[in-house]
């Protein structure tokens, strides 16, 4: 044990300086780090395919011994190309797992897909930086018959696509009342007039009155799955699983029978709070609500997350979007599926001003609540953190589509609201690694208990044993019980069929609930060794040996 700790310590020292860096990795650096991990004998790195943009779609499989028959967790990064943090979190998880926690592999196998959107991810390092989702395939986003005819334009030549605002009484935006750097929608319900029209930065190249509606990007990974596929919507395409990345991943996953859970780093969040249960939707044949038992599991895992990860939920209102990966993994693949952005902008409380006595007496709802938008909260947080380099001051540009109007370009820089400054990433990665390791410790675990062999007359024996799922997780999600893509629990007794008088040599049971026990018994003839095996790849296999 001490030896192990020492090893870990020294190895840790050796390892950390090597990854010291000050920004999110380039695709090349990701590959190098994966290749380095691949030199370890518990890891094997495979390229599932190359994207249209020529990027490898990597999977790092980490396990020891009979790793295909140990329950496994799949960790997915890069579900969205602009979410560069997610890639680093998946990578660091792999590095910390292999270098610091290899003992976990005795029980659990891991599949790490560090970056599912490499084409879009590369925009982070492009000369023109913007928050990109789509891959490098050609797609007619506005379905008008011409492809990519209206992309962004960098009007202020700063290498970034930010916002564009046009002073106009026709607009539906106003300056934010407490932070004039950002804009907020005019409150029409209160009769508020607008003063700005807001667009993303660009020109109406095809003169159709819409700006930047046919971007130079293809299909987004996180819209391309079968669950609630947003057919014909921009970035989604004509049918689900149409892209190389998606197909390669799904084809691979269907061959890995041992995955019991997914942890996806993506904008959706069902870890700060579990998904909501809707009885009506859970009863329909086309499900749109998680099933009841699975919500309870989600709740339990969510509690674990909130205990392990220090950040408190704020504005976490995305619990899945149409065609995304994390919902697919549950609704169409039947596995426990969890997603978290890993990081979000914390709530910035307005500084308390001393309240006057008479104001205190007013009813609370009569007071004007300060308007807090994602943008204003971000700016307040950035100020608090003294962050530079997150905002482009508004400057006036001349714009061909608005010849006699004041057009300004500026606003919050791309990426900074989704991805923290890189120096914050290590602590986020440590906490999330810990969470995944704790989730692994909860995995379904089949055990045999209370073995009894009773001798009956005439050379017959009755073998009785309890099969126990020693885990707070059911062996199958409630939805997974219905799916053909999760195996049943199979119990084999190694005895000639003729010598098994009662009971079959092969027996299948649908599932075991959390901490559930099932008593099995056989009546067999003769003597010698008997081996009984029970399980399935995703819940592990228990073995029992006895002598008659």
């Amino acid at each position: 044990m001490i030896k192990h700790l020492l090893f870990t310590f020294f190895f840790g020292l050796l390892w950390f300086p090597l990854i010291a860096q000050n920004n999110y990795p380039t695709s090349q650096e990701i590959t190098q780090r994966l290749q380095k991990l691949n030199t370890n004998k518990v890891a094997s790195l495979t390229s599932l395919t190359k994207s249209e943009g020529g990027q490898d779609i990597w999977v790092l499989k980490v396990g020891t011994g009979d790793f295909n028959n140990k329950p496994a967790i799949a960790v997915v990064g890069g579900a969205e190309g602009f979410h560069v943090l997610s890639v680093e979190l998946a990578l660091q998880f792999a590095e910390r797992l292999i270098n610091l926690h290899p003992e976990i592999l005795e029980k659990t196998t891991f599949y790490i897909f560090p970056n599912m959107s490499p084409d879009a991810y590369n925009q982070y390092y492009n000369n023109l930086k913007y928050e990109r989702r789509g891959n490098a395939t050609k797609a007619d986003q506005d379905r008008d018959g011409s492809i990519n005819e209206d992309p962004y334009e960098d009007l202020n030549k700063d290498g970034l696509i930010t916002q564009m605002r046009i002073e106009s009484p026709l607009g539906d935006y106003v300056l934010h009342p407490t932070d004039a750097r950002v804009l907020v929608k005019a409150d029409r319900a209160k009769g508020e007039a607008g003063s700005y029209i807001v667009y993303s930065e660009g020109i109406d190249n095809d003169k159709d009155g819409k700006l930047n509606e046919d971007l130079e990007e293809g299909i987004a990974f996180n819209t391309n799955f079968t669950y609630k596929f947003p057919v014909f919507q921009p970035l989604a395409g004509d049918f689900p699983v149409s892209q190389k990345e998606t197909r390669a991943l799904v084809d691979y996953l269907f061959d890995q029978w041992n995955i019991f859970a997914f942890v996806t780093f993506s904008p959706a969040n069902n870890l700060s709070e579990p998904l909501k249960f809707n009885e009506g939707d859970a009863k329909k044949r086309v499900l749109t609500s998680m099933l009841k038992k699975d919500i309870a599991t989600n709740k339990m895992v969510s509690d674990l997350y909130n205990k392990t990860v220090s950040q408190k939920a704020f504005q976490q209102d995305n619990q899945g979007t149409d065609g995304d990966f994390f919902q697919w993994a549950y609704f169409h693949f039947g596995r426990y599926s969890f997603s978290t952005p890993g990081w979000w902008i914390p709530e910035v409380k307005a500084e308390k001003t001393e309240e006057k006595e008479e104001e205190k007496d007013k009813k609370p709802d009569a007071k004007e609540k300060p308007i807090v938008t994602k943008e204003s909260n971000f700016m307040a947080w950035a100020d608090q953190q003294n962050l530079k380099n997150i905002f482009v001051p508004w400057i006036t540009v001349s714009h061909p589509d608005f010849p006699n109007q004041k057009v300004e370009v500026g606003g919050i820089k791309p990426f900074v609201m989704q991805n923290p400054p890189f120096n914050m990433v290590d602590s986020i990665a440590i906490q999330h690694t810990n969470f995944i390791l704790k989730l692994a410790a909860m995995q379904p675990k089949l055990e045999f208990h209370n073995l009894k062999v009773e001798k009956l007359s005439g050379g017959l024996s009755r073998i009785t044993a309890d099969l126990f799922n020693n885990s707070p997780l059911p062996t199958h999600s409630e939805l997974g019980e219905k799916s053909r893509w999760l195996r049943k629990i199979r119990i084999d007794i190694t005895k000639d069929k003729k010598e098994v008088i009662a009971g079959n040599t092969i027996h299948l049971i649908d599932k075991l609930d959390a901490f559930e026990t099932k008593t099995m018994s056989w009546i067999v003839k003769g003597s010698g060794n008997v081996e009984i095996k029970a399980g399935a790849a995703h819940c592990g296999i228990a073995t029992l040996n006895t002598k008659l």
Partner: protein
Amino acid sequence: MNKSIYSFIISFLLSCFALSETNAQEKFFRAIGTPHQPKVEVSWNRYYTYEGVTEIMQKIAKAYPNLARLESIGKSVEGRNIWSIAISDFKTGNPDKKPAMYIDGNIHSNEIQGTEFSLYTAWYLTEMFDELDFIKELLQDKTFYIVPTINPDARDNFMKEPNTPHSPRSGMLVLDNDGDGEAGEDRFDDLNGDNHITLMIRKSTTGRFIKDPLDDRRLMEVGPEQKGEYEMLGFEGIDRDGDGRVNEDGIGYYDPNRDWGWKWQPDYVQRGAYKYPFSLPETRAVADFVMKHPNIAGAQSYHNYGGMILRGPGAEEDLDTYNKEDVKIYDAIGKKGEELIPGYKYLVVYKDLYSVFGGELDWFYGGRGIYTYTNELMVSYLYYHKNEGRANQEEELNVDKYLTFGDAFVPWVEYNHPQFGTIEVGGFKKNFSRAHPGFLLEQDAHRNMAFTIYHAYHTPKLSVLNVQEKSLGGGLKEITATIYNERLMPTHSSQDLKYNIERPDYVSISGANVVVGMVVENEDFNKVKEQVQNPSKISVANIPGLGTVKVRWIISGGGNYSIKVDSAKGGIVEWKK
């Protein structure tokens, strides 16, 4: 004649064949409606294996190089080519730009006759091109993409290996059906070695059946208070893996007709769904082909059986997809089908058959905006002009006795079964009930083809009806062109318009200096919609069936201009001053 004979001489045998063909013409008298002197001889009263199908297609393509083009659209699970034959008059324009009809068969491997029906269509069209003005004009205007079997592997398995009338249905992938971690470990066993999987029955004191004393082929259920003599044990098989069940894990199972990309649902909702839409190579090949051929405006898929002309939706949840305007067109063609194919009924899948998510016809229509039918070939009506329903045992025994004289039934024979002991094996053969008997095949093929020809005929046919010029003074002229679609289908179904599935139609003018361009929405009241960008190429959302679209340009100067209509599903039409 000599020339044609010499071209046929490859071997002694072939030359004999050619000579006997010469003689044959003197012996025969033309029957109306059938190619009389076909270059490609095919018997339409039997079924063809994959090899046979391929050979017929190759012969057609070779005999009619200006009308038929053979192409592999992809490979099956076991690596067979999935053949498509494009039929069109190649001398009158690019076949891939003409309005097209897509036809396939045999998606369910045991539903074999769709292949022969498709092949018959290819054969008939090519052989009749020079004989009938109607067919000639049809192939000048249209293209038929015919893919006789989109499940070639399991077609051959159905024919060559022991099967029931209902198996394999899927393709040749072998999955784990009972969830025990092993795939295909307990398949049918052809106990009596006759290449048919029939039934197993056993004498039993608690059995509920007796053999009919007047017809021992027939098992009758006894009354509730009566004692029977036989029990039913299911299809021929033995328990191979020792789990106490027989035939529980065979080929497949999955359903290629649940593998399509419109409102697809996974296996727990829609039994038979595979991994995701187009996760099977065969359906993927068809989808790729359709995506590459936006000129396909109509489609037909052949199944069996029951005598149905089906349209979607496949599931009630998808009811909204099929809107009024499109249903009108479906109804017009479908009802004509009922007339052309007596015994067949025009029906809607979700309410008249059963619920299907991810079916082929729903993707063709929902996902591509193509008007599509599925025909369930073969119907009891064809036997005695009565509709006795599917699998009517009385009728089938009668047919076997009086029309096929015992050819359809395997008599009961005793067999010593390792688990069941002494049993009897027998019953209807795999190629009866779902498949037409030979003598009914050709007529039904012809009638179903006639339905697809009617369907194809009503894909859009565009023309520039007239072009009016008006002087506006100052050297400006106003040109108004009327584009006419003389058939039932619009260039964009309303499903297509809802999602902009296919690009708009373009009406463009060249040889003129265009100042302004517009679509005329109402000529009488001069309601127009200007197109600011690129006004010489006007985008038109749709050209309705049996309707017109007017396009107007204001040009300066200009002499001999020309106008071009370019529609993905309506073809290309040019007009010159």
